[in-house]
């Protein structure tokens, strides 16, 4: 009979098979979920990589006194000078249409770029100079190899003629790829090659600051009240139910609240970090309260008893002893809440933070964009080059989220105390 311990019956074999199957379902579910994560983040990183470098094209410009009056630089028509220089580089181009295409190799800002370079270094003046200019988005896609040059002409935005120009430039060492600083120092732009995330990033930072300064103190005090002082009555129960429900209300509803209350009733300025931050703070409030209550609860009653036993008042015991011990946990919860707020898009759309904002905002009452909203806007743009930009902006957003979460994990590990 005990041989049954080692020689399995048929039933036992099928039971073991179903056990193995069940286990593999579990492994498969986890593998599938994680594979998706890797696939998504990986493909975004691969796509966004291209936006971190940008193409430059060198053009020889005659900066002699014939073209630029050294005493009155500003009087020059930089745009026409640039166009003239381009025509001289490719003298064979004659038709109007082709000329326009030729100018299109460079970014529309070519005149400004020339002016800025001259003002930065007036010693350039006097003769012909080989200067570098930002390539247009379409030229950049060809130069970086993102768009295949051997593709059928109808399937790409650049004609064979334009590509032949680019190849001439490449052969004369007049093209270059370098780290795209503009992406981090420019605001938004209609031109993909000039578009940057600085305005959106500043907008996000201002919005999050408002969010933090509003939600953190309110949340921490509310948590202290509910956990340490609130009598167990109907009111505190009602507040508790309220907080739990608020945590699960769809974010867009908070946007509607912001629109109806903050903008229409109180008349706060539209599209600003002030309103955005207020709306986000209402959303993060429950998250922080719940986290703060959990870490207050983790402080053992013996600490309270010790303080009360020495004659401290309940308020003193809480603020001198319990709250400081719970602070790391509360901070961790706050950072997690802030990270959520940083990625939140829908409520910001409701309060008008979707406008095209090229300028970097400097105060919380100026119109601003935010990083996730910028991603949303770029994802909607039709130019091919914005796909790269969107992915790159996502990478920046993810980097910030990772940093915040690492900070939270660090805090948790450092202050993790077993009471």
């Amino acid at each position, binding site marked *: 009979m*005990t*041989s049954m311990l080692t020689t399995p019956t048929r039933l036992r074999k099928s039971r*073991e098979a179903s056990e193995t199957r069940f286990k593999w379902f579990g492994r498969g579910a986890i593998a599938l979920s994680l594979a998706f994560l890797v696939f998504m983040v990986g493909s975004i990183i691969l796509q966004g990589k291209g936006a971190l470098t940008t193409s430059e094209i060198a053009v020889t410009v005659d900066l002699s006194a014939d073209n630029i009056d050294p005493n009155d630089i500003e009087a020059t028509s930089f745009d026409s000078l640039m166009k003239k220089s381009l025509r001289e580089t490719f003298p064979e181009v004659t038709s109007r249409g082709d000329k326009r295409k030729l100018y299109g190799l460079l970014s529309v800002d070519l005149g400004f770029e020339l002016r800025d370079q001259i003002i930065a270094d007036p010693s350039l003046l006097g003769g012909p100079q080989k200067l570098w200019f930002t390539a247009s988005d379409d030229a950049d896609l060809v130069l970086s190899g993102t768009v295949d040059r051997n593709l059928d002409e109808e399937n790409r935005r650049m004609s064979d003629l334009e590509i032949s120009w680019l190849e001439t430039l490449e052969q004369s060492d007049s093209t270059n790829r370098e780290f795209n600083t503009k992406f981090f120092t420019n605001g938004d732009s209609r031109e993909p090659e000039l578009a940057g995330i600085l305005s959106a990033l500043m907008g996000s930072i201002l919005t999050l600051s408002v969010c933090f300064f509003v939600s953190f103190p309110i949340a921490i005090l509310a948590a202290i009240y509910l956990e340490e002082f609130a009598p167990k009555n109907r009111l505190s129960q009602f507040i508790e139910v309220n907080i739990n429900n608020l945590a699960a209300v769809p974010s867009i509803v908070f946007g509607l609240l912001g629109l109806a209350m903050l903008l229409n009733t109180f008349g706060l300025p539209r599209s600003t970090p002030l309103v955005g931050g207020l709306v986000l703070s209402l959303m993060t409030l429950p998250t922080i309260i719940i986290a703060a209550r959990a870490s207050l609860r983790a402080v053992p009653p013996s600490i309270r008893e010790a303080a009360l036993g020495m004659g401290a008042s309940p308020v003193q015991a809480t603020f001198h002893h319990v709250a400081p011990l719970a602070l790391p946990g509360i901070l961790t919860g706050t950072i997690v809440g802030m990270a959520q707020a940083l990625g939140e898009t829908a409520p910001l759309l409701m309060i008008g933070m979707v406008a095209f904002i090229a300028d970097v905002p400097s105060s919380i009452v100026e119109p601003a964009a935010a990083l996730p909203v910028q991603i949303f806007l770029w994802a909607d743009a039709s130019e091919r080059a914005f796909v790269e930009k969107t992915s790159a902006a996502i990478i920046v957003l993810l980097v910030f989220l990772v940093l915040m979460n690492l900070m939270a994990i660090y805090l948790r590990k450092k202050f993790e105390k077993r009471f």
Partner: protein
Amino acid sequence: MNNIVTEMSGAASVQNKPAVNKAPIFTAKNVDVYYGAKQALDKINLDIPRNKVTSLIGPSGCGKSTFLRCLNRMNDLVDICRVEGDIQLEGQDIYAPEVDVVALRQHVGMVFQKPNPFPKSIYDNIAYGPRIHGLTSSKSELDDIVEWSLQRAGLWKEVSDRLQEPGTGLSGGQQQRLCIARAIAVRPEVILMDEPCSALDPIATATIEELIDELREKFTIVIVTHSMQQAARVSQRTAFFHLGNLVETGATKTLFTSPEDERTQNYITGRIG
């Protein structure tokens, strides 16, 4: 190897030899148990005689429950637990790699300290084991097993009219008898009981003790108890554990009246505990 196993089990099997089998059902040799780096049992040598009640006694933390849980490998559930040495059930090493834990536990059932009925009906609690082990082929057979188990556990009269009610609705003592019924429903050879009465009142305890005595004719029972009176009442053999050592083992009467070891003497007279 397989041959030897079959031969040995054939020789030891109850069915093949209707006459009373004197060979112990369990033999433990040099059993060491470690939790991580901490040693919980040290060189335990113990035989469990068949169709008798063996009680394991000793102060808390002495390793008696640990030893009990070695016998059906419930210790496998504890990640850091390591068992060394040799434990044989009917001459077969239960820690051999080819042994199937699931089959082992079908033969060596267990009743736990706190009654733990499944949150299902009384009927389903009992029927669960026979179902997964495929012991029955029809509904009426299953009904018979349920009735037989409840009869043996002395619970049939109390619950026969409400088999579909949840098992969690019974009183503590009834729940524990339900757990015993559940354990015997899969017809194990051995039933391990880990302080089965510690959560019960004295009247319920008395009922369970009577039950244990009756079950002895069909099953081998190993019971861990912290009550020396209980050990004296229900068991024929007793093993005394102290600080991870098996101090003394023998017939219950002898052990309680004339212990050989001083530590046993101290324990049964209440000087250590």
